[in-house]
């Protein structure tokens, strides 16, 4: 994770487009300016960033399903559960499962695991829209390569 750049997954480990399943790996950094305020002398990863890591994980799957022609934007978070504190240095596994691919929108279920224990989950809804700029489209493709999206497709 590079929190300051809002990059909340490090690697796409597996991606099964047919089954609508994706799994990403994410390691919480040991240090970040965010931990200076959240919280002083008690650093924990903000819950909104856990939700964002689930959104980015599902987002990579949706990007691949859309063949990078359109971009998923997070628009709704349902039934989010953040079951435990996540602290600097932790290694997380983040999964996304496609619940429904609608017309111009998609619904996924996100989950975060510490080893085999589920520590957070949410249902996420995305609006699927054209890329607002070509520059963003190119950058998103680059980012997908950085996290190994192409290699992960099973």
């Amino acid at each position: 994770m590079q929190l300051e750049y809002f990059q909340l997954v490090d690697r796409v480990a597996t991606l099964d487009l047919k089954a609508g399943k994706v799994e990403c790996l994410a390691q919480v950094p040991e240090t970040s300016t965010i931990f200076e305020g959240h919280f002083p002398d008690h650093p924990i990863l903000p819950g909104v960033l856990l939700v964002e890591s689930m959104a980015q994980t599902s987002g990579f799957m949706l990007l691949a399903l859309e063949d990078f022609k359109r971009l998923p934007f997070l628009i709704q978070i349902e039934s989010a559960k953040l079951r435990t504190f996540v602290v600097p240095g932790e290694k997380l596994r983040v999964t996304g499962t496609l619940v429904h691919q609608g017309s111009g929108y998609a619904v996924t279920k996100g989950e975060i695991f510490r080893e085999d224990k589920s520590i957070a989950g949410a249902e996420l809804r995305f609006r699927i829209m054209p890329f607002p700029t070509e520059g963003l489209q190119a950058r998103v493709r680059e980012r997908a390569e950085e996290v190994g999206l192409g290699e992960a497709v099973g």
Partner: protein
Amino acid sequence: MPDSTTTESTFDAVADIIAETSSIERDKITMQSHTINDLGIDSLDFLDITFAIDKRFGIKMPVEQWMEDVNEGRASADEFFVMSNLVAKIDELIAAKA
């Protein structure tokens, strides 16, 4: 054309979904209601409703195509968003699936 029994039960299911999703009084929803102009459903609530309808009937409402038709002048918004027309479109999708 769908039979009237199907249309009525589809209407009831859709009206229940709208009432639940958008906090609109169920009695205010009629076959003549325009989901956007009369019921004031915004785009995010409409997406919720679309998802609930897709799930309920096992269909995929082609809302993007509908919006494109409206934006390009091939159809009026009433054709899709007045309840009687919306219900008829849903019945067509259900029939096509069978």
